[in-house]
């Protein structure tokens, strides 16, 4: 290995150390939910002892002890900051994290494997807040999330629209001309379908955009690339082959902020989910209420009911707060006209539609 190669490898390892530290700090913050007092000197001493037994001849035990002590002290300091734990689906660098940062400042952003982990984690109190995508301007509803919304008791307390800038990423060693396979979340792959077809690339679904970038950096599979954000290129030390590879000129995803407690503010936008009897004019009757009250609808979407596939859930977002008299009146009338009605809550709207 030449000097330049060795230096590059050192840079890569240092970067990985820091990314791992970020993950470790996140876990330390999560542990506080189970054990409010951060100080546990016995456990700490045990951990330091265990590390001593590793016996790495280039990493002296005096040095590793000091290093771990510094890390533990820093994680205690972080625990005392009382950051809110915000869960998102995917790995660090995922669009969910970008949305989380936009919705909650100075939080601790915790990656989750699946959407259901975000929902159940917030419901169980493991996390303070959750951030999930509901719809994309190119691909429409994110069905898994919409499905989970129908069964959860969580409230929507905020929303944000994130402009998606998909990048084709590969490791430095990969020759872009050799790329044949592209890993990413199925939603991202679908949003870049034309690009993949034009360049004769095979789409390989992966659980997450950032997860695909992370896998690429760690395993470097042959002739492979990933579709993820430019943040991931930075985080996982990957080359951007091309930016903005999505098929539509404006690709954005709307994320919701979820909490056990309803929004403290009155809000100016409301989300509901309802189902009506399978009879002529039932849906019309409900929509008519909104028309007559002059309430503007911002989203109408439908999804087959899991329990009864011949019937549908309707997702309705509209302008106005449930605190408004005319909204309250419509919701009250709806009670009698629907077979199920779920109010996800009112929250401040972001400017501009999807």
């Amino acid at each position, binding site marked *: 290995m030449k000097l330049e190669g060795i230096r590059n490898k050192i840079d890569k390892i240092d970067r990985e150390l820091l990314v791992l530290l970020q993950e470790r700090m996140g876990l330390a913050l999560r542990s506080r939910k189970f054990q409010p007092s951060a100080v546990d000197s016995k456990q700490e001493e045990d951990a330091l002892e265990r590390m001593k037994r590793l016996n790495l001849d280039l990493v002296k035990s005096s040095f590793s002890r000091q290093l771990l002590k510094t890390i533990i002290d820093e994680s205690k300091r972080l625990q005392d900051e009382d950051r809110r734990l915000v869960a998102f689906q995917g790995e660090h660098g995922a669009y969910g994290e970008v949305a989380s940062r936009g919705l909650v400042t100075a939080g601790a952003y915790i990656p989750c494997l699946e959407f259901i982990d975000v929902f159940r984690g917030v419901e169980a109190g493991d996390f303070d807040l959750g951030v999930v995508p509901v719809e994309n301007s190119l691909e429409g509803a994110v069905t898994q999330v919409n499905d989970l919304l129908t069964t959860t008791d969580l409230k929507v307390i905020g929303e944000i629209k994130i402009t998606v800038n998909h990048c084709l990423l590969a490791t430095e060693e990969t020759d*872009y*001309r050799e790329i044949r396979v592209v890993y990413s979340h199925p939603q991202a792959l679908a949003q870049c379908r034309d*690009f993949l077809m*034009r*360049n*004769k690339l095979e789409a390989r679904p992966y659980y997450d955009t950032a997860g695909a970038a992370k896998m690429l950096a760690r395993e470097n599979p042959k002739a492979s690339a990933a579709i993820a954000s430019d943040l991931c290129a930075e985080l996982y030390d990957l080359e951007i*082959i*091309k930016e903005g590879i999505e098929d539509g000129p404006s690709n954005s995803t709307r994320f919701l902020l979820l909490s056990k407690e309803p929004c403290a503010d009155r809000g100016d936008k409301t989300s509901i989910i309802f189902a009506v009897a399978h009879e002529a004019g039932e849906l019309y009757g409900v929509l008519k209420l909104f028309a007559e009250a002059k309430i503007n609808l911002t989203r109408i979407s439908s999804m087959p009911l899991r329990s009864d596939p011949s019937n549908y859930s309707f997702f309705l977002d509209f302008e106005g707060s449930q605190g408004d008299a005319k909204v309250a009146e419509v919701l009250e009338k709806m009670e009698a006209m629907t077979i199920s009605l779920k109010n996800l809550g009112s929250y401040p709207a972001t400017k501009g539609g999807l």
Partner: protein
Amino acid sequence: MKNLKLAARETKQRTVINISDVAVGRDFVVIAGPCSVESEEQMLESARAVKSAGADMLRGGAFKPRTSPYAFQGLGLRGLKLLAEAGRQTGLPIVTEVIDPRDVSWVAEFADVLQIGTRNMQNYSLLKEVGQAGRPVLLKRGMYSTLEEWLNCAEYILSEGNPNVILCERGIRTFETYTRNTLDLSAVPAIKELTHLPIIIDPTHSTGRVNLIGPMSMAAVAAGADGLIIEVHYKPEEALCDADQALTPVIFADIMARLRPLSSFMDKLPD
């Protein structure tokens, strides 16, 4: 000429190729820029200079077919990104050369027009690939090629389903050594008789001499060419390739100021 099923001129109808706001084959189109993409600063400064002088499209090479394997080979993908960024900032469509069939779909991702250089005119696998790339192709004449050979190469691209071919006369090898090549201006009216495809002139590589570029550009307009492709570098003395034939932005602007009136004058002449 036999076997030119698609390239031969059978009606009065001429091919017009729309590339953003530019109509090649209808307007007199000037493509300008450095020989190769060298750096962000060089590319952006050169792009701004040619834009303000009135160029319609931006050229720049990211992959360079050089006579010597030790000469600067181009920045590759990084060069394409710099070129696309310069195009985005100035609003000029991008023309760039592709030399490897494996690069074609990637170059097409960044460029508006794919250029086939003189050394690759008869690289048939490359021609087939650009024929499928969905981008207009600027096909330079091989320096040893006859018009018939050249048009057969255009036929390769057309037959793959790409109707948008721009021909470019860039000089041919003769016994003369004072000029780099000999500009065959008679190719312009000849090509217009033989085919419906637009033809432009490269006064830079055909002469290889800064002082001859202006007069030959004027002559190209008078001969009825559809446009020009000219090398312009914001600091020619620092250029990494072909330094002695690139125009400064000032000289290029002077030529442009003389070209446009001549071009409108030509348009007014009776047929």
